């Protein structure tokens, strides 16, 4: 199953984003993810189905959650 990882700044925002997406009907899971943009470890991502990723990013941004990066991945996420 192809998934997109939407990287956010902390686990709090990951949990907030997960709640927002699921209340909008988008299933989302949380992963610990390396932030390749900053080279920093210690980021969290929200994993969603690839075809839902654009909509998910839009929902997150509209609700004040800063999206640091997005990564295309494979697997169950």
């Amino acid at each position, binding site marked *: 199953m192809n998934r997109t990882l939407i990287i956010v*700044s*902390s*686990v*709090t*925002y990951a*949990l*907030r984003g997960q709640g927002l997406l699921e209340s909008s009907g988008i299933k989302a899971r*949380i*992963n*610990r*993810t390396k*932030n390749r943009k*900053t*080279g*920093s*470890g*210690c*980021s*969290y991502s929200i994993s969603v189905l690839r075809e839902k990723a654009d909509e998910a990013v839009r929902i997150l941004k509209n609700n*004040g959650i*800063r999206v640091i990066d997005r990564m295309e991945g494979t697997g169950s996420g």
Partner: protein
Amino acid sequence: MIYLDNSATTMPKPPQVQSAVNMTLRGAANPGRSGHKLSLAAAEKIYSARKTTAGFFGMEDETRVIFTSGCTMSLNMAIKGLMKSGGHAVVSSMEHNAVMRPLKAMERMGVTVTKAEVFAGDDDRTVDSFRRSINAHTKMIVCTQASNVWGIRLPVERLCALAHVYGLYMIVDVAQSAGVVPIDMKDGYDIVCAAGHKGLYGTMGTGLMLLSESVMPETIIEGGTGSNSADLTQPGELPDRFESGTPNLPGIAALGAGIEFVKSKGIDRIARHEFRLMERLYEGLSGISGIRLYTAAPENGRFVPVVSFNVDGHDSEEVGEYLSKSGIAVRAGLHCAPAAHEAMGTLQTGTVRVSPSAFTTTPDIDKLINAMKNCKRFL
């Protein structure tokens, strides 16, 4: 032991609070630090408590709920974070040392303080007293919502409006009022600081700093947050900016459960219960010769449910010791609030403070009244 020292910390804790602690101790990892299931489950518990807390205090943005080690830590973070560059603060004559000592320590950095007199039962005079204490260098009003010694409530909603007319920050210490007085951040407070282990029924070692959208103090503690670790600059995003170090997961889970307990009982119902008890106590003590009461009878709206008294010719600590030997736990002395005692002329003797909780019963109060009726034989 009859426990009437709930203003120090509530006891017992509700069963759901005890369960919350037990569950985290049995199987919870470090939240926000790892990607394994136990760490994520721990982070979910903290997030859930954060959401519960935000809802309880009328906040839309749960990331502005900062968990701390106690109200003292919250007040230090708020005061020092906003006064780092100096300035003037207005406080009330009823403040706890959690407000007075941080400000005293900042005097060497050029911070100055004016104490505004509180006039119990006359909010107009109290507000005017604060207004007259503001000067060109004033940055903030920081005051308690209710005295931890006398139970006297301050008109913090009006003081908040006053602060904003003058472009000042308004910081409110709700250590003694949260759980018996509704507090809504939409009333305009810039920062509200609360204890987690008193009227919110959490465990000791927990507190809250609630930030409005209009304020972002400097940090006084920096460290690991589990986020953006390659950058040595403290993260700017909330709540990480103010929550360095491993969070107190058992305490935060317990605080969330404690707030749920208060919500389920209802603030009004808890307050009515405690006021009934304190009115009974006040009436009972009023009829005993040699007992001195310092305020009007505690009345919902003007007080929080606390009664302080003395016995003529005796230090408060003697009376506290007598009650302890009689199987009744109260707090005697200065209650870490010498300013409040100075205002009422009890700095030398202290007072005996009685404070109930949702679990206090009428027979508990009657036993205290009876013990005081007999005290002259033993003191």
